[in-house]
Every structure is written in C-alpha cells, then in structure tokens.
C-alpha cells in the first residue's frame, strides 16, 4: 500500500517535471515560462520528496527531505521574483495573445 502510493507520487512528480520542461520550451515569453518553472517544477520536486519520505528509514531523514524541498521552494520563489524584476527593468514586455 505504502509502496504503491510512493510509486504513484514519484511518477506524478516526474510527470510535473516533464510538464515544466514542456512549458519552458513552448510558452511564449519569459514571464509565462517563469510560471511554468516556479509552479510545475517545484510541485514535481515536492511530489518526489513526498514519495521518498514515505520510504525514508528514519524521521530525521524524512525531515531532511522536507527541508530540501522547502529550501528549493524558498530559493525559487526568490529567484522568480529576481528574474521577473530583471526582465521588467529591461523593459521586456509581456506577450499578449
């Protein structure tokens, strides 16, 4: 039961990584690509972390996995703001339809 749940979470996580890469390649401008990266990739990593946490040996190991995810979330939240401000300062206009 735990094993199949873990496998399902891992597969879903990898799926979101795939979607994030597709978004990075297909979306029309830097802002929409930022959407794809900050949301899909972080969710993908989160699901992989959850899937691995279910099979972690100790509580501390599971906690460390969670901390890694939270760090990546924080870092990519900051990075997305920085890149968006950079693009705005360079007067890169958002794509509109």
């Amino acid at each position, binding site marked *: 039961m735990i094993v199949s749940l873990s496998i399902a979470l891992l597969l879903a996580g990898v799926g979101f*990584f795939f979607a994030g890469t597709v978004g*990075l390649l297909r979306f029309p401008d830097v802002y929409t*690509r930022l959407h794809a990266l900050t949301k899909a990739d972080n969710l*993908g990593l989160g699901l992989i972390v959850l899937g691995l946490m279910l099979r972690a040996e100790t509580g501390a190991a599971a906690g460390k996995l969670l901390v890694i995810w939270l760090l*990546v979330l924080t*870092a990519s939240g900051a*990075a997305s703001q920085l890149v968006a401000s*950079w693009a705005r300062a*360079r*007067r890169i206009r958002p794509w509109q339809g």
Partner: protein
Amino acid sequence: MTTLYLALTLFLLLTLAAGFWRVRHGPTAADRMLAAQLFGTTSAAILLLLAEALELPALRDVALVLALLAVIAVIAFTASVKTATPDQDSRDDR
C-alpha cells in the same frame, strides 16, 4: 524498486537535456538563466532519486547544498541590473 528509480532518473536527465534548447534559443538572457534554474531543480530531484537507487543517503546532503547554492547564480545574474544600463531594446538580445 531500484529499476524504477533508475528509470525515473534517466527520464529526468532527458528532460534536463531538453532544457538546453532554451539556452540555445533564448531569446533574452533571462530565458537562458531560467533554463539554468530548471537544471538546478531537476538535478536536486535526480540526486534524491540516485540517493535511493545507489543506497547512498549522503547524496541527500549534496541535494541540500544544491538547494542552497543554485540560487546564487541567479542572484549574481540579476545583480547586473544595477551595474548595466537599462536596455530599451532587450528584445534584440538574441
């Protein structure tokens, strides 16, 4: 189980490789930097999966360091806003 971890690792590696299309085609420097950010997140996931597949829990520490340091490149990149003059025609930056 190890087979599954290896398969997922391989798949993630292939999506990472696909991201190089964005490094190549830009069009702006920010797009290329975004691709680098994608590599960071994907590498963290790959390391966590490898830690299970190779039974090397210490690889989680590598992922932890990656999570801490991957953002530094983006910070260094955006620091260029202050030193470089704002570019009116950054769309031509391809």
